């Protein structure tokens, strides 16, 4: 039986989906985490802890483990672990993409430079120091612009500025966020960021698998809610896309060229693009599958999941011919209803009764502190829907969300308020 080393940060959403996929495929899994779990050491082949902060040390630890428990593939479940997974695979002599390619995909500035050099359509951008004169930054990219941290995920810290005054305020706010203790930013990532020209238009996300550099599009999601700022909290993803077929073909072509420009040839990718009258513009490409619980919105022939495809691909098994189910499907990342402490969430069962809704998952627990964007990034829940067409799915998601009511207590006192 093949053993996969699965890298799961202790803050990931991805454990359940990957473990279920491994089980369905009959694979042995060893979970590697950044912090000890209760079974670390007690079930030595089941859970190990690696030094996620030091790829070299983690590779040594993994190699030591692999001497007794041979490993067939290494899989990083999310942004934080893909570079580490590549480094470990390299140390074990397993197939992997170049570490430089994985690092480039992880760093927004390096990625942009590579994409621009390859002649791909990207917004005008500049790297800047957070203590720089906002007018100088605005002069390089124009206004309105968007500033974003070099590494944070889930649109955390991403802000739009329409004038120099609001740009200065956004830069100070981003600086404070990057200095906060719950953000693991160091070096240039702490003191520098990326600014880019704001591009109007609709946003789409492409989910794909690379095999020997060839892109297989697994799904193209529309994001029907406008993402015009001032913050960029994501909400609804719906597939299949309602974008014109010729534009979809151009999107796939751009993503294929972007992966090649970065040096990526294998494994899952998640790309985000804007589409406007000038065509598709690539914003980001990550060498990982879609995040959060969103992969539940994807189901392939025979009930195969995205994680099964990722694991099969990692083992070099054939994944060709697996197409997405015929139904339209979608997910809503439930918007953060406001700042406060969750007392309870009402209307969950009612939301689940909306026709087309498959699942309402509330991930925020009672007593949890909710932090709105741009400082926050933890969605309090996910809603999943399926239907005959994308419009029906989108309507079901909005209707279900309309039935949810988060009862929050302000952090300072016990007074309650309802928020949707």
């Amino acid at each position: 039986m093949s053993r996969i080393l699965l890298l799961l940060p202790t803050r990931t959403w991805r454990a359940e989906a990957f473990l279920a996929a491994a089980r369905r495929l009959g694979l042995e899994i060893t979970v590697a985490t950044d912090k000890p779990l209760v079974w670390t050491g007690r079930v030595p082949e089941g859970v190990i802890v690696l030094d996620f902060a030091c790829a070299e040390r983690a590779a040594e630890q993994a190699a030591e483990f692999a001497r007794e428990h041979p490993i067939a593939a290494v899989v990083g479940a999310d942004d934080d672990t893909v570079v580490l997974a590549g480094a470990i695979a390299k140390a074990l002599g397993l197939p992997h993409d170049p570490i430089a390619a994985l690092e480039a995909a992880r760093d927004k500035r390096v990625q942009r430079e590579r994409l621009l050099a390859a002649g791909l359509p990207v917004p005008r951008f500049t790297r800047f120091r957070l203590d720089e004169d906002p007018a100088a930054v605005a002069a390089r990219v124009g206004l309105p612009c968007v500033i974003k941290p070099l590494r944070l995920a889930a649109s955390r810290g991403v802000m739009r500025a329409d004038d120099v005054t609001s740009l200065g305020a956004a830069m100070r706010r981003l600086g404070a966020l990057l200095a906060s203790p719950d953000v693991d930013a160091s070096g240039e990532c702490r003191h520098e960021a990326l600014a880019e020209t704001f591009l109007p238009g609709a946003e789409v996300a492409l989910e794909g698998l690379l095999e020997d550099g060839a892109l297989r599009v697994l799904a193209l999601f529309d994001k029907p809610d406008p993402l015009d700022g001032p913050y960029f909290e994501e909400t609804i993803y719906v597939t299949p896309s309602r974008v014109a077929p010729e534009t979809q073909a151009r999107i796939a072509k751009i993503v294929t060229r972007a992966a090649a420009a970065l040096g990526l040839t294998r494994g899952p990718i998640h790309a985000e693009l804007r589409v406007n009258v000038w065509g598709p513009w690539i914003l980001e490409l990550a060498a990982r599958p879609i995040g959060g619980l969103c992969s539940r919105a994807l189901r392939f022939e025979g009930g195969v999941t995205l994680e099964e495809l990722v694991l099969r691909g990692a083992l070099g098994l054939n994944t060709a011919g697996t197409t997405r189910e015929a139904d339209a499907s979608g997910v809503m990342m439930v918007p953060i209803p406001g700042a406060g402490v969750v007392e309870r969430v009402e209307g969950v069962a009612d939301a689940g009764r909306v026709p087309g809704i498959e699942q309402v998952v509330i991930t925020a627990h009672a007593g949890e502190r909710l932090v709105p964007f741009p400082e926050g990034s933890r969605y309090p829940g996910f809603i999943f829907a399926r239907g005959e067409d994308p419009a029906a799915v989108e309507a079901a998601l909005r209707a279900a969300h309309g039935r949810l009511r988060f009862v929050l207590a302000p952090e300072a006192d016990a007074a309650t308020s309802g928020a949707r």
Partner: protein
Amino acid sequence: MDPEIKIKALPIDEQRCRFTVDRPLLPGRAAYFGDAARAAGSPLAEALFALPDVASVTVAGDVVTVTRGGYGEWPDLARKVGMAIRAQLQSGAPPIAEAALEGMPGEDEIGARVQQLLEREINPAVGSHGGWVELLGVQGNDVFLQLGGGCQGCGMADVTLKQGIETLLRQEIPELGQVFDQTDHAAGRNPYYTASKK
């Protein structure tokens, strides 16, 4: 063949498939056969081991779980398993020999052994992260658990369950069927690890 006998096949993974029959095969009891030699004298188990690639068989209540030795698609083998189960039921003979049931744990015994492991090893371990695990019940050889404290809503709860608790239970109770987590994780107030990355 009796067309009225309905069997639902549900592959658990590429190696295990669960067949739920619309009538009991072994009411209130469970039998585990780790190889063909142990199946001798039990007609259903013998018939299943006669099929290619069958590595182990568990019969519990109205459920037959078949584990195969290699990998492959289930439909062909599942059809043959279904035929063997139907043939056995139509014969009217007991599917499992009484002798084979000697020493096989019933629901009560499986429950007691799980409880013992919870008290002796599992709860002291998860207690170090402020958690606990409770046995809700046993059906056939399937076990239903509920996690609490730091395990309830923890981002690593599934790793704890599948990579730790279930591994340990299977080492100690090879006859074990499936392990189900019945926890309402959204209601957890103090999870040890909270998922937050996109």
